[in-house]
């Protein structure tokens, strides 16, 4: 990470004023708490709505880049016959405030899928037109394990700026040009004492994570084991874990009202790999759950060198039957090659 940017320190009111300034000429999205429901990213109308608490949004920022349903083109007809009207790429710049380090890190993993051999124009356009400002979390819950996945609550990977709330002040780590456009001249530079305070605060945040998960290498040795049948027995085959995961990216292409849509899809669903002939290479939830575990902790590592998991804990936190993928994968039996 190029270190040519200086950290800034800013008061609460000034931060609110900076956000209000942005509201004027950008589309700004931030976390908002709906009482009794949870925290959701929503377009911000008033800077004071922003949720600065310790909790996590239910849906990750992924949905602003890989949209739950995206229209690619529409088939139309004019006098000279049929033609395909391509959906225009959204042009307006926007700012997303409040992402956690795990979600932003998830975007850099999605970049490996959608911005590599085949360039997904819709995803890339969303990435380019968005400035992502993170808020470092200081109270991870029992399901978080980002430090075991190579990340940390203080990591700015995939972000343009990262805000640390310390006391009633905010230290802003400017990471990219986009971040410096907004916070480059905000507040003041850090003096030595504030820098030390910030370093100790960062250390405290990392240590706040109680959970350690050791993902074994060579998971493929356990592929044939009946372990997966028991591990997945309680799975309901719903889409909660895949849709709320910052790195799950499987999708479906469907035609509706002459439009070609890309919609979220998930390997947990029973008909995800069902052939029209009725054949299904993953007929039961054992194969399906094993596919999700292996795609994240074996296949993706083989193809791209990193686990496809950022340890955000959403799939554990929101699973209706409390299935814990970290525990299941950590205890996979590598010894017997059954």
């Amino acid at each position, binding site marked *: 990470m190029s270190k040519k940017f200086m950290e800034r320190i800013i008061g609460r009111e000034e931060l609110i004023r900076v956000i209000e300034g942005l509201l004027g000429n950008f589309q700004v999205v931030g976390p908002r708490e709906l009482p009794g429901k949870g925290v959701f990213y929503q377009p911000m109308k008033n800077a004071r709505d922003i949720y600065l608490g310790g909790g996590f949004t239910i849906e990750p920022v992924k949905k602003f880049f890989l949209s739950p349903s995206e229209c690619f083109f529409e088939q139309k007809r004019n006098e000279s016959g049929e033609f395909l009207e391509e959906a225009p790429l959204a042009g307006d710049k926007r700012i997303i405030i409040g992402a956690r380090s795990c979600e932003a890190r998830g975007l850099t993993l999605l970049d490996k*899928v959608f911005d590599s051999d085949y360039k997904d124009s819709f995803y890339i356009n969303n990435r380019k037109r968005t400035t992502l400002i993170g808020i470092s979390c200081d109270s991870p819950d029992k399901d978080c394990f980002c430090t075991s996945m190579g990340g940390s609550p203080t990591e700015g990977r995939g972000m343009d700026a990262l805000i640390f709330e310390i006391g009633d002040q905010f230290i802003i780590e400017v990471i990219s040009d986009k971040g410096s456009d907004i916070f480059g001249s905000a507040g003041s530079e850090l003096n030595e004492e504030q820098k030390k305070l910030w370093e100790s605060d960062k250390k405290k945040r990392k240590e706040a994570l109680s959970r350690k998960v050791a993902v074994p290498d060579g998971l493929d040795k356990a592929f044939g084991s009946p372990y997966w049948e028991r591990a997945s027995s309680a799975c309901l085959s719903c889409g909660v874990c895949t849709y709320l995961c910052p790195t799950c990216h499987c999708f479906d292409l469907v*035609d509706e009202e002459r439009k070609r849509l890309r919609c979220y899809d998930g390997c947990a669903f029973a008909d995800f790999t069902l052939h*029209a002939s009725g054949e299904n290479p*993953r007929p039961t939830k054992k194969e399906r759950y094993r596919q999700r575990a292996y795609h994240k902790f074996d296949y993706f590592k083989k193809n791209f060198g990193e686990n496809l998991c950022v340890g955000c804990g959403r799939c554990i936190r929101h699973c209706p039957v409390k299935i814990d993928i970290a525990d299941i994968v950590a205890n996979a039996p590598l010894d017997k090659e059954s």
Partner: protein
Amino acid sequence: MEDIYLSNLAEIVDIKKETPDVKTVRLKFKDGKIRDSFDYKPGQFVEFSVFNEGEAPFCISNSPTRKSEGIECSIKKMGKVTQAAHELDIGDTVGIRGPYGNGFPMEELKNKNLLFVAGGIGLAPLRSLINYCMDNRADFKSITIVNGARTSKDLVYKDEYPKWEKAKDTKLHLTVDCQEDNWTCMVGVVPRILETIRPTCKDAVTIVCGPPVMIRYTMPVLLKIGFCAEDIFTTLEMKMKCGLGKCGRCNIGPLYICKEGPVFTYARLEALKYEF
């Protein structure tokens, strides 16, 4: 940046009814530039769109050497897209995206004896390769084609059989699962036919394509005859949607069949410790 999911419009120029539930559709791209620049290897597939119904993968069943006539896809009526495709007429517009997949490794097949083993609609990808060999006959040694189907009505490309039989050093073996009146060729499932005719495996390569059950029982027979796993090529039929190795359906282990395949050697599939 161009949209990698955008279909190219193509017009249906000819429809041939092969069997009660299989039609071969010949398409010509509407856009001249694409028509000329579109090139493919035998064994590659395209994402065929019937607009407002959906998209499905179909191998290109005619040889690249005959690309000027248009590209052909043989479609068996199975699900939503294929049923809609069967209701299309000549002159209708469809969408073609591709070509995708690795296709057959042409260099490894050059001046070798070729054994084609096909079951039912499995002959479609092989026809592309067979006709390619016919048009470059000198590059290949002997050709043996074993083509089976449930009944004689299910045999596809019947009008090409005489041409294949008359070709140089080419033998065609047709078989149906059970005896039918006025059926003169062989009777029996493909694996058993292979055991009876025992084609030579010296300096030979075999290409197999058919329903999963046929592949499962044909492989051991080929190994018994003497083919080694590196010389057995098969094209896998998986559920595919994007064709770009992104949508997460067609993978076996870390391999995305639509991108790294669908053509694999049996050796590579066996080496995969994952489900196959």
